[in-house]
């Protein structure tokens, strides 16, 4: 289970799918979940700073002129470059999946009986990646810090040697 309370947007024109995914994710993670039936609604609320968006590709069954998921992905990434976008779509054409990844989606999941579990796994993997990135940064910082201390000791030792100060006979004793 993820420990931090993250915010997630579910964007699907299929209300039933949104509700089922919401039920599933609520039972697995501590998440603040908001649902939208069009990508335009999602973008209007992007300032709420979601950590993740789960986006359908075809979003026009309710509103015929609604933008498709790739257009929404591009706009969301433009507005919030660090956002994680996952696609959950009934569209199983490979070229659509490739395009979503090309434009920055984290993963593409085809809607079927295993899709809820796959979305769950994606969120766990994202959480692990974020943690690893954090650890890598902390490790880098610690390495630089220790290297700095070591360098300071070496410099001090050289200076002491030049000045003829011995650690055993520092001169002020």
């Amino acid at each position, binding site marked *: 289970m993820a420990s931090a309370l993250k915010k997630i947007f579910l964007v699907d024109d299929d*209300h*039933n799918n949104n509700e089922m995914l919401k039920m599933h994710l609520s039972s697995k993670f501590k998440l603040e979940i908001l649902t939208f039936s069009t990508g335009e609604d999602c973008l209007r609320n992007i300032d709420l700073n979601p950590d993740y968006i789960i986006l359908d590709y*075809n979003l026009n069954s309710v509103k015929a002129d609604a933008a498709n998921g790739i257009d929404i992905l591009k706009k969301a990434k433009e507005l919030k470059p660090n956002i994680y976008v996952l696609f959950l779509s*009934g569209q199983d054409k490979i070229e659509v999946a490739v395009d979503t990844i090309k434009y920055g989606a984290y993963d593409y999941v085809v809607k*079927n009986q295993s899709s809820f579990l796959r979305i769950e796994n994606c969120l766990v993997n994202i959480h692990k990646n974020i943690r690893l990135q954090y650890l890598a940064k902390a490790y880098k910082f610690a390495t630089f810090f220790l290297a700095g201390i070591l360098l300071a000791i070496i410099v001090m030792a050289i200076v002491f040697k030049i000045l003829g100060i011995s650690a055993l006979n520092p001169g002020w004793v």
Partner: protein
Amino acid sequence: MEDNRVSDLSFLKQFSSGNNEMMKKLINVFFQTAQDALLKIEGFIAEKNWERVGSIAHQLKPQCSYMGIKSAEPIIIKIEDAKNSDGSVIPDLFISLKAIIEKAVLELSEEVKKLG
């Protein structure tokens, strides 16, 4: 006859972890979704608006998957493909799809009764 069933609630049972109320809710939402979709598709077929027929049929695909209506999925895929080529085959495909979904709705109504 058990063999002639077109629906299978195995996934829904697993998904709802045996919560009958949740199952009933999801099945009832499916009834509404399917009924709305079939009505819309009929309307768009009358207008020969194959693009919209394909979009509405597409929405039904995952719902049929969740209700275990496997025989509906290949028909929906054919409808989706036909919207970009030969739309004239869509009305016949829709008749088959509607028959399957109506049968599934009858089966699922019986399941809802059993759930109490």
